[in-house]
C-alpha cells in the first residue's frame, strides 16, 4: 500500500542552526501517528514544513506518492493556540476554510449539524471569548476537520489546557478519531497523550533531530485504566526521549 504521507531525507536550518537532518518517516492512510520529543526539538518545525509555512533545505515530501512543495492543500493544520478570530462568531470561525475557497454557504450547511457532535450545540452565534478553553479547542478542531484536506496536522492541540480539560479533550478526540476517518499527524511532548491516541509513535531525538525510534500501539479498545497499565512502555519511551534508550 502507498503511504498517505511520506517524508524522505528532510533537512532544515534556522539560519546557521541546523534543526532537522535527514528526517524520514511515513504515515499510512487513516493512521494516527504521533511525533514525540523534547520541547524545542523541532517537532513543530516538521508540521510547518509540511503545511508550507517553511521551506526545507533538502529532502522530499510526498502525499499519495506525489511530491509537493509549499502550501499544498493536502493538510488541515491545527496549532497549539486555537487561533479563533475574536471578531467572528464560532460559526463564522469554523467556516473559515470554506470562506477562503469561495464555498462559504456550503461550509455553513456542512458545519451546522456538526456542532452537537463537537459538543458545541447552541454556540454558533457566540464569540470565542464567551467559550471555555476546552470549547474553544473543540471549535478549532471543528474548523480543522471542515478543511477538505485529508491529512490533519495537530500541533500540541491541547497543550494550552489544564490537566482535567486536557484529559477530557483526549477522550473526546479518541472517540472522534474513528468517525473522522482521516490520516492524522500529532506533535506532542506528552507521552501519555501519544500512547492513548496513536497507532504509532515516532520519537524525535538528537541534534540535529531525526527519528530515533518507532513504537506501534496495537490496542483497539483504549481506556484510562489501560493507559495507567502502560508503565513499562511509558518508561521505555521516556528513556528514548532522554537519549538513554
Amino acid at each position, binding site marked *: 500500500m502507498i503511504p498517505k504521507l511520506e517524508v524522505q531525507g528532510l533537512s532544515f536550518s534556522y539560519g546557521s542552526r541546523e534543526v532537522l537532518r535527514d528526517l524520514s518517516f511515513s504515515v499510512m492512510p487513516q493512521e494516527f501517528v504521533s511525533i514525540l520529543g523534547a520541547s524545542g526539538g523541532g517537532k513543530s518545525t516538521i508540521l510547518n514544513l509540511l503545511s508550507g*509555512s517553511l521551506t526545507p533545505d533538502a529532502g522530499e515530501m510526498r502525499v499519495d506518492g506525489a511530491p509537493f512543495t509549499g*502550501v499544498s492543500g493536502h493538510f488541515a493544520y491545527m*496549532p497549539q493556540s486555537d487561533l479563533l478570530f475574536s*471578531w*467572528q462568531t464560532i460559526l463564522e470561525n469554523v467556516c*473559515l476554510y470554506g470562506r*477562503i475557497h469561495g464555498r462559504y454557504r456550503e461550509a455553513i450547511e456542512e458545519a451546522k449539524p456538526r456542532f452537537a457532535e463537537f459538543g458545541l450545540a447552541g454556540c454558533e452565534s457566540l464569540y470565542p471569548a464567551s*467559550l471555555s478553553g476546552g470549547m474553544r479547542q473543540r471549535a478549532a478542531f471543528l474548523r480543522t476537520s471542515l478543511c477538505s484536506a485529508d491529512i490533519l496536522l495537530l500541533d500540541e492541540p491541547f497543550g494550552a489546557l489544564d490537566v482535567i480539560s486536557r484529559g477530557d479533550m483526549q477522550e473526546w478526540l479518541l472517540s472522534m478519531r474513528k468517525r473522522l476517518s482521516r490520516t492524522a499527524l500529532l506533535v506532542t511532548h506528552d507521552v501519555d497523550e501519544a500512547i492513548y491516541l496513536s497507532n504509532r509513535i515516532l520519537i524525535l531525538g538528537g541534534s540535529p533531530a531525526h527519528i530515533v525510534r518507532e513504537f506501534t500501539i496495537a490496542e483497539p479498545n483504549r481506556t484510562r485504566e489501560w493507559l495507567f497499565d502502560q508503565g513499562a512502555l511509558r518508561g521505555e519511551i521516556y528513556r528514548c526521549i532522554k537519549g538513554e534508550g
Partner: protein
Amino acid sequence: MKKSLPAVLICALLLLWEACVRMLHIPLYVLPAPTQVIAALIGDAPTLAHHAFISLAEALLGMGISLALALVLGVLMDAFPTFKRCVYPILVITQTVPMIVLAPIFIIYMGFGLAPKILTVTMMCFFPIAVSFADGMAEVDADYVNLLRTYGASRLQLYTLAKMPASLPSLLSGLKVAATYSVSGAVVGEWIASQAGLGYYLLRVKNAYMLDKVFACVLVIILLSLAMNGLIRLMQRVLTPQTHMTNEKNV
C-alpha cells in the same frame, strides 16, 4: 454615586464661577457669567447652528478623507516595508509643523472656500488614524497569518480576513483621537480666513468683545467635538459587537 461625581464637580465650579462674576461685578467683556453664556447661546442659536453646520461638514469631510487615505496608506505601509520606511518619517514631519502656520499657506493655494479648511482637518486627523491602523496591523499575531496561508488564503484575503479586522480596535482608537481634533481643525482653518463657520463667528464676536458669545461658541465647539467622539463610540459598538456581547452571553 461615583459616576455622578464629575457632574457634581462641574456644577459646583459653574456655581462658583457665577457667584464670583456677580459678587465681584466682573464686566461682560472680561468674563461673562455662565447664565449670560447660556442666554447668548439661546439668543444666537440660529446663527450658531448655521455656522456649526458648516464647521461640522468640514470636520466630517476631513475625517472621511483622512480615514480613506489612512486605510490605503496603512495597508501599503504594512505590505511594503520599504514604502513604510520612506513614508513614515514624512508623516512624522507633517505633524511637527504647527497647523496655524500651514493653514494660511493652504488658503493661499486653495482660496477662501471649503477646500483649505477640509485640508486642515485632514492634516490634523490623518496622522493618528494612519499610525494607529498601521501599528494595529503590524501587531497582528503571525500565527493567524500563517494559519490563513496554510488554508490557501491569497494575500488580499490575509488583509480582509485577518489583518484589517484584527486592527479595527486600534483604528477606532485613532479615530477617537482624530474625532476630537477634527472640529478644532475646522475652526483653525476658518479662523485664518473664511466667510462662515464657527471659527469665523468666533473671530467676529471676539473682535466685538462679546465674550458671552465667544464662550457660547466655545461651548458649541466642545459639544460638537464630544458628538464626533460619540459617533466613533457608536461605530465601535456596531463594528466590534464581540466586545459587548461577550459579557452578556458568557457560557
